[in-house]
């Protein structure tokens, strides 16, 4: 399968969020691959391999949008095993969900993949919109929040994580799939090539030394917005951002009796 995976760089979620005036200050951010995008890369690699023999099929292309420095995150996706990368140059001010979706669509139109795999959300903006918007722009079917994918013939059966449990949806290729975190569990990707008895390690794979060396020789093609014929015009504007009101520091109670007394008399929840 020819799979295109989108990769966004985000500030390390473990880092404390800093503010400058009325906006988030990312000047000292430690940039990492959005975790859900890393899961999408892992999913693509699992779909395109026989894990028992190590044999690879199809092609996995990773793409990102942003400044030149994003090549670092693309390089780590290549080290995991993706075949080549595309970096569309753009500044953050030009981008919102709609603009990103238009750019991704333009790359899909050029590359014509069978599957567009994306993370279900980016841990910075948390909008969870782009996969669905791209699917609409492409007029493709969508399967969001995928926790399990079974590939057979020209379609995918996707188990989607929904509020009430699991929803099973079948989509004909080409399609857009956004992945949830359980897609990286040991047997969440079934491709008909890897034996069903195979169990993956939990989580996205680490790049091997060989993978890191190989990634240095792989292509990261830089593309300008103009080359894609896209005018990125954001339709939503972030006016300001501020820290939430912190919770008042609580108290430690010495035992269960004191806890129950406080819950009854002070918090009045019992």
């Amino acid at each position, binding site marked *: 399968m020819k799979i295109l995976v989108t990769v966004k760089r985000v500030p390390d979620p473990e880092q404390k969020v800093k503010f400058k005036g009325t906006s988030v200050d990312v000047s000292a951010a430690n940039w990492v691959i959005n975790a859900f995008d890393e899961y999408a890369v892992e999913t693509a690699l699992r779909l395109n391999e026989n894990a028992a023999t190590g044999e690879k099929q199809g092609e996995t292309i990773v793409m990102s949008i942003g400044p030149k420095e994003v090549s670092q995150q693309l390089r780590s996706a290549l080290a995991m095993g993706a075949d080549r990368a595309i970096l569309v140059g753009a500044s953050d001010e030009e981008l919102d969900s709609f603009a990103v979706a238009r750019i991704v669509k333009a790359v899909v139109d050029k590359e014509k993949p069978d599957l567009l795999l994306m993370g279900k959300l980016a841990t910075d903006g948390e909008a*969870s919109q782009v996969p669905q918007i791209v699917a609409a722009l492409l007029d493709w079917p969508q399967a969001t929040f995928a926790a399990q994918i079974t590939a057979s013939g020209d379609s995918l059966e996707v188990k989607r994580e929904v509020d009430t449990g699991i929803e099973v949806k079948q989509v004909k290729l080409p399609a857009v799939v956004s992945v949830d975190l359980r897609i990286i569990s040991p047997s969440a990707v079934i491709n008909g090539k890897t034996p069903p008895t195979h169990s993956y390690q939990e989580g996205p794979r680490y790049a091997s030394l060989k993978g890191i060396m190989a990634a240095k020789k792989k292509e990261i093609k830089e593309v300008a917005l103009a080359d894609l014929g896209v005018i990125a015009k954001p339709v939503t504007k972030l006016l300001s951002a501020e820290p939430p009101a912190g919770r008042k520091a609580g108290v430690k109670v010495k035992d269960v009796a004191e806890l129950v007394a406080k819950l009854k008399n002070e918090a009045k929840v019992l």
Partner: protein
Amino acid sequence: MSNVLIVCETTPEGALRKASLPAVSFGRQVAEKSGGKVHLLVLGSGVGAAAEEAQKYGHKTIVVDDARLKGPTAEAYAPIIARLAKEVGASVVAATATSFGKDILPRAAALLEAGMVSDVIGVLGPKTFRRPMLAGNALATVEAATAVVVASVRQTEFPPAEPAAGGELSKVDAGEVTSKGATFVRAETSKSARPDLSEAKVVVSGGRGMKEGKNFAVLETLTDLLGGAMGASRAATDAGMVPADLQVGQTGKVVAPELYIAVAISGAIQHLAGMKGSRVIVAINKDGEAPIFQVADYGLVATWEQAVPALTEEIKKLKAAQS
């Protein structure tokens, strides 16, 4: 051209899902600022009961009831939502940010060429909203500049709407239903007699420290005594101790009950993002340095093996004395 269209969600049995009502409250707040009216849309197959219920809340309620809409898919629903948004002159289209709303709304937004704001927690203007980002560590003010704006609404931040003077109910044809190669196969619903996690007044959650699934039994006893819902941290669902739909956090559900009891949960940022809005937070953890204590109103440094059965007994005694 300043009306609000709220997309309602239905149960597989065709009833109105209560989760739709916070979106109606949001819609009323927007309509107050825009001078428009709140229209409700119910779509699906065999959803007559839901439409009748929805009628109590909207200025007008539209129902699209068609066998081809059985099993919701974004591919079939989004074009109908977009068409009706235009027909009712909506400047804002919204639904609660459930998995249904999150899946379908952005697709409808694309068809409407509408800017979309996700997970709205406050209405500042007809097209200016507040929303959390960065796992709840920043609150953003976002303005959408398009003629139509789409919003998903965080369930815990708006009260369920009260019925208003009921408006008219109109039936509308689905028109052309397009599957775009997508088929709803089935829903595997986890059945529980407990209240819905996102709506419960009390939530008792267990984390990695519970060690294995069978240990959640002690939490179940406490949960049922309090009439609450069970939750879990990602560590507990990842380890397979409890089903994934119990997960509270950035991935999973956002809850804001009156009382949240976190047992053997360390308090990773991703978990805190899903429960920081609770009114009263209790943390029980054997590690006194665990980050969960920084957000807890009441912290008890103890093992769950000691604390939970004792807590259950104390509350039982209290309830007996109260009744």
